[in-house]
């Protein structure tokens, strides 16, 4: 492939900005900003109190600094904490009322918001900067008692559920970024699946950062009541900017008895340019509680974007016989850094967890798997299986694996396997000899390497994710 061609394909496809008028909170992190957010969202008193409590707590917390990727100090007073397209200040009641420019943006991103696209069978909630702009298929879901709406709407319409579960997995005082989120979160999705209901379609949220100098703090809460099932997918993109933008989301999942939640992420925030300028700081807290017996939570993530990715989607296996899974692909190219993995906390009896992590580093990137498997003394007969594979491309990148393993009883078994390989020149030559060019060959080999994780994704997204894997690594092999 010629250099010019490479340049074009390497460009971040989602790097455009949309020019729309925004309503912003004044710059800076203070009580006024929090009140502004709460007020504009017409939140009840208890919600504002909760936020202020988090803000108070934040004053005594420090940003963690044990992670491998270091970043320059973030000036929290120099950020906007709320930015919303003006036209949605009154939330649109139907898709027709949404600013056509926003619809156009989502069309460019390939996100179907228009309900005619029924064939896709995916209900989408779209979050643009700080607000949710549209939720599709709402009526159909409502018939079955499923609640799928923005968290702002849930706070107003389903306060009993929000009060009961918000912060029950990630407490207010958890750690700096989680607490920051609790104070200033703007929007996100809320899902409630009633007992013995299998959600008939994939639920999906699409996050888009558009405005500059804006942090995105979304909050997602998913509750699967007894005997229910839901599969949820989130996708993320942002415009190309030479500043670093902060994204600090909190996601809480709760699975009650015999319930199952499958949560998939395709994260493709702007990664910065090839020199490492710009890009999103993706500092995210994701945690699921398998609260009921026989419950199951499965995290699947494909992390290809962001300048720094720092997240550990975790499972707290409280219910007896509950199951936690973590499937991850983390791809870092150029100067991207990822410090990601999972925590599996075994509390209940006969609990099982499985961790499959595939890290791929290219260019000057650094990729770290960090994970905790903690089997407590009452979690008898529990099992964990962990497999961490790293693939290196070129000789300037790094791959690291730090597993923390704790087993506090004698009836439980923990297995850990890890491999590190370099992409094989002979394999590339072989593929070339079969007519595949370098990019196609890398894509094929890497997709093969990631197969166990890719096959966990819902069908509709697996193809997209495969392409994304290939695009993220373009130009990484000489």
């Amino acid at each position: 492939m010629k250099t010019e061609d490479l340049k074009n394909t390497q460009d971040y496809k989602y790097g455009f900005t949309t020019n729309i008028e925004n309503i912003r909170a004044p710059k800076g992190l203070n009580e006024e900003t929090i009140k502004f957010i709460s007020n504009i969202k017409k939140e009840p008193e208890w919600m504002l109190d909760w936020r202020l409590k988090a803000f108070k707590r934040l004053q005594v917390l420090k940003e963690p600094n044990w992670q491998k990727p270091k970043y320059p100090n973030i000036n929290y007073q120099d950020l906007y904490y709320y930015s919303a397209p003006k036209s949605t200040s009154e939330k649109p009641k139907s898709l027709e009322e949404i600013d056509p420019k926003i619809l156009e943006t989502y069309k460019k991103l390939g996100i179907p918001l228009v309900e005619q696209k029924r064939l896709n069978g995916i209900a989408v909630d779209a979050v643009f900067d700080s607000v949710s702009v549209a939720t599709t298929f709402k009526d159909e879901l409502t018939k079955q008692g499923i609640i799928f709406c923005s968290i702002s709407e849930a706070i107003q319409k389903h306060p009993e559920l929000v009060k009961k579960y918000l912060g029950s997995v990630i407490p207010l005082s958890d750690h700096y970024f989680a607490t920051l989120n609790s104070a200033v979160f703007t929007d996100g999705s809320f899902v409630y699946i009633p007992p013995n209901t299998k959600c008939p379609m994939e639920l999906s949220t699409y996050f888009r950062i558009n405005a500059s100098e804006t942090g995105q703090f979304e909050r997602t809460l998913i509750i699967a009541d007894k005997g229910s099932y839901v599969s949820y997918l989130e996708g993320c993109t942002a415009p190309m900017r030479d500043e670093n933008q902060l994204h600090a989301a909190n996601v809480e999942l709760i699975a009650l008895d015999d319930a199952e939640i499958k949560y998939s992420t395709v994260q493709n925030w702007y990664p910065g340019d090839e020199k490492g300028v710009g890009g999103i700081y993706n500092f995210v807290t994701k945690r699921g509680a398998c609260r009921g017996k026989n419950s199951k939570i499965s995290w699947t993530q494909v992390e290809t974007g962001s300048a720094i990715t720092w997240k550990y989607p975790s499972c707290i296996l409280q219910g007896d016989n509950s199951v936690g899974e973590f499937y991850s692909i983390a791809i870092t190219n150029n100067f991207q850094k990822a410090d990601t993995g999972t925590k599996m906390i075994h509390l209940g009896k006969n609990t099982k967890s499985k961790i499959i992590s595939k890290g791929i580093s290219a260019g000057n990137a650094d990729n770290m798997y960090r994970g905790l498997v903690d089997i407590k003394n009452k979690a008898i007969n529990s099992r964990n299986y962990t497999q961490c594979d790293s693939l290196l491309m070129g000789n300037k990148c790094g791959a690291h694996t730090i597993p923390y393993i704790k087993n506090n009883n004698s009836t439980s078994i923990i297995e850990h396997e890890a491999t590190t390989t370099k992409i094989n020149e002979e394999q590339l030559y072989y593929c070339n000899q079969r007519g595949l060019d370098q990019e196609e060959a890398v894509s094929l080999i890497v997709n093969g390497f990631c197969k166990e994780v890719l096959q966990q994704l819902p069908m509709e997204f697996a193809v997209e994710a495969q392409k994304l894997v290939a695009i993220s690594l373009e130009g990484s092999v000489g």
Partner: protein
Amino acid sequence: MLNIKNLETIIDNKHILKGLNLNIKPGEVHAIMGPNGSGKSTLANVLSGKNGYITKGDIQFNGERLNDISTEERAQKGIFLAFQYPLEIPGVNTNIFLKTSLNAVRKAKGEKELDTLTFLKLIKEKASELGIDEKFLSRQFNVGFSGGEKKKNEILQMKLLEPTLSILDETDSGLDIDALKIVADGVNSYKNKDNAFLIITHYQRLLDYIKPDFIHVLSNGKIVKTGDANLGLQLEKTGYTSLS
């Protein structure tokens, strides 16, 4: 079809090929024999365009100079190499690999890419011609295949991609007699007046099943003797030392 003039090759400061000349016409089967280290596999790698070789001289393929063309373009133009040690591609289904490869070649030739259904029909046909079990196609590419299965997979790819020049690099090594026959049948059934074969081998054994039009003896980077099919039989008796 293939005209090699005065080919010299250096890799890692070692002078391997030292002025090799070879002409192959459509419809011909050429065998290259020779002792270990004479440059046989180097010739296969240089023809297919493997990185790392410094070459002098001229390689013309169907009237076009090949020297500076990438490996994949050579493959797309109809050069196929059956590897001595075929590679494994973990996690990639054999069908997917074969389809990706075929469509890359078809696309380069300006032909329409095959959809999955058409491809599956075609590949099942080709596999059954070689007596290859269909189950084999849904396994990961070459992963856990026996030596014989890997070589059969090479021949399957040859028949699928329909190259004009097929280079077989010691495809017979490590094969039992049944697998050897399958490989030979595969070659014989594909052979026609428009394509050609370059068969690299140590032994006469394969040439009992695939009758070559010419046998060349490669020694110390040059072709030192060329003859017809009888030369192989003669070498079997006298060995290579009698020629040098």
